[in-house]
């Protein structure tokens, strides 16, 4: 992650909206960030703030219509949004792959694990069936599934949640992509399995020099994995910072609220002091509030927050915040 290097993925003013019967939903509303070779970028935010839609927009996995994607997504110099169907298909799984949130439903119940993992290699590397199968077994071995030879011949229902997520990781790594979009890869797993999956991803990342966009709402995961964090709220980026700084010195009230709501086990709470929460809920993307989108829930709201959108204020190279308090 050298400071001068060109970004691997550069997103500029990405807007994704859905045309629904009830009106237009602005799920992602003009976000920008970049990802560098080999780094892990954390994308944090509450449910419904547009994290997953961002990932799906990068790979254009949304149905258009009803979705409409605008802006620019430059991957290694090429604008992915300018490519045709075939061009995007060649990028998917080969240069950029994705790990999904739900390992229980992301594998096809009627296909053997080995067949599903070998698919990417057959599509992108022109391998024969046998070659791809052996490759899939290697992938299973790499993600530490015991007995990969026989496991590859099994159907997904024989796999536990953690093993399925490993299989999914093996699938996403099978063409040695340069970027992995991990959409809440551990949310559906229990804590011990989470830790295993995280350390596995960390190890593989170092081994393959893959960049990861880690989408999550779990700040613990971020602290462990990410080198840089982008915080999203209601379809917009509100803060970006290197991971240490975000924990030490969060600038945006929303980030402060997120950090304040992490319970710390073992810390004796004084009587009467409860775990902090952010009051209210995320605004509906159809009716976003005027001005700063966080102002109805913000504890430090000032007058101008209510009618004027705060500008993005750059504090350092990878340090920016969108809040009137910083001006």
């Amino acid at each position: 992650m050298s400071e001068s290097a060109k970004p691997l993925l550069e997103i500029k003013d990405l807007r994704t909206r859905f045309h629904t019967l009830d009106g237009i939903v602005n799920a992602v509303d003009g976000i920008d960030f970049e990802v560098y070779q080999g780094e892990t970028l954390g994308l944090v935010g509450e449910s419904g703030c547009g994290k997953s839609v961002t990932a799906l927009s990068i790979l254009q996995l949304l149905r258009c219509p009803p979705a409409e994607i605008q802006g620019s997504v430059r991957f290694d110099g090429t604008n992915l949004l300018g490519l045709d169907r075939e061009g995007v298909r060649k990028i998917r799984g080969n240069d950029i792959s994705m790990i999904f949130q739900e390992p229980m439903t992301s594998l096809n119940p009627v296909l053997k694990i080995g067949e599903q993992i070998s698919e990417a290699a057959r599509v992108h590397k022109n391998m024969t069936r046998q070659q791809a199968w052996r490759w899939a077994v290697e992938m299973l071995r790499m993600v530490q599934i015991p007995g990969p030879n026989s496991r590859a011949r099994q159907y997904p229902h024989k796999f536990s949640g953690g093993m399925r997520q490993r299989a999914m990781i093996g699938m996403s790594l099978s063409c040695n992509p340069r970027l992995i979009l991990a959409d809440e890869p551990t949310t559906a797993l229990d804590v011990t399995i989470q830790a295993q999956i995280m350390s596995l991803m960390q190890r593989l990342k170092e081994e393959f020099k893959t960049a990861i966009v880690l989408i999550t709402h779990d700040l613990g995961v971020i602290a462990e994995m990410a080198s840089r964090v982008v915080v999203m709220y209601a379809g917009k980026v509100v803060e970006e910072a290197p991971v240490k700084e975000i924990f030490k010195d969060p600038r945006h009230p929303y980030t402060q609220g997120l950090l304040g709501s992490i319970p710390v086990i073992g810390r004796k709470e004084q009587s009467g002091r409860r775990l902090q929460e952010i009051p209210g809920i995320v605004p509906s993307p159809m009716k976003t509030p005027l001005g700063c989108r966080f102002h109805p829930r913000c504890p430090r709201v000032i007058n101008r927050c209510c009618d004027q959108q705060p500008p993005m204020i750059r504090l350092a190279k990878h340090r920016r915040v969108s809040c009137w308090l910083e001006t």
Partner: protein
Amino acid sequence: MTEIKEDNVCQSGERVTENRFGRIWAKLKRNKVALVGGVLILVYVLSALFAPVLFPGSPSAPNLMKSLESPTLKDPLGTDELGRSILGRIIYGSRISLIIALGVVFVGIIFGIPLGLISGYYGGKIDFGIQRITDTMLAFPGFLLALALVSVLGVGIKNTVISIGISMVPLYIRLVRGCVLSVREEDYVEAARAVGTRDVIILSRHILPNVMVPITVQTSLSMGTAILFAAGLGFLGIGVQPPTPEWGAMLGSARSYLFHAPHVATFPGVAIFLAVLSFNLLGDGLRDALDPRFKI
């Protein structure tokens, strides 16, 4: 240590796959009605396969000396107006009916499944186009459509198969499209798209196997309907032509002797009835056996 573990895993894996078919069979076996249907179908299939053994000689050769005889030991179901054995004609007729039924579902599947997959998966204008054509075809009663088509194409086994087959196509399109609409939203389809799988492969390897159950059931039911339609066309004299022993045509020519020799019309009618019934019973049984929600 690891190897021992691996062996265990492998064995249990095979046992489960065996069990899957075993369980479907066990469920089907418990459904006595479906089993009766299956056995009857087996009887028809065997008599179609071994027709020359069961009935030596030609089923169409007339013997006017024995015209319209009642059932005897030699001709257990009697003879028709040209003195031909009705049993023999029914046995040979099962060949015709089964071939027509297979041909019809083949036509239905060949056109219906791809169009249904495309319509459901792509949606939008393609879906709209295919569905409006389907609507138009479904607006006609199935038999009427087959009747209209056969009057354009002409008589004979081939045209019977084509016209009834085409009238089945919209049913398959609708069925497959409906199933695809739900399967295409599954996470594993999105995951397959995310690794860059081609649409053809997604449709054939990921979606089609997940919609096979309703297709299987529909096919069994369609076989019954096809036999009924073919008999209907034969009865009206625009399907398979005499002297080919076809159940519907037999029924049609027996109509004139209904009071004088009722057995001539009765037995082909019973043959049609049992064939259609058995395919419907098997279809119902398959639906229950293949549905994972019904546990035994």
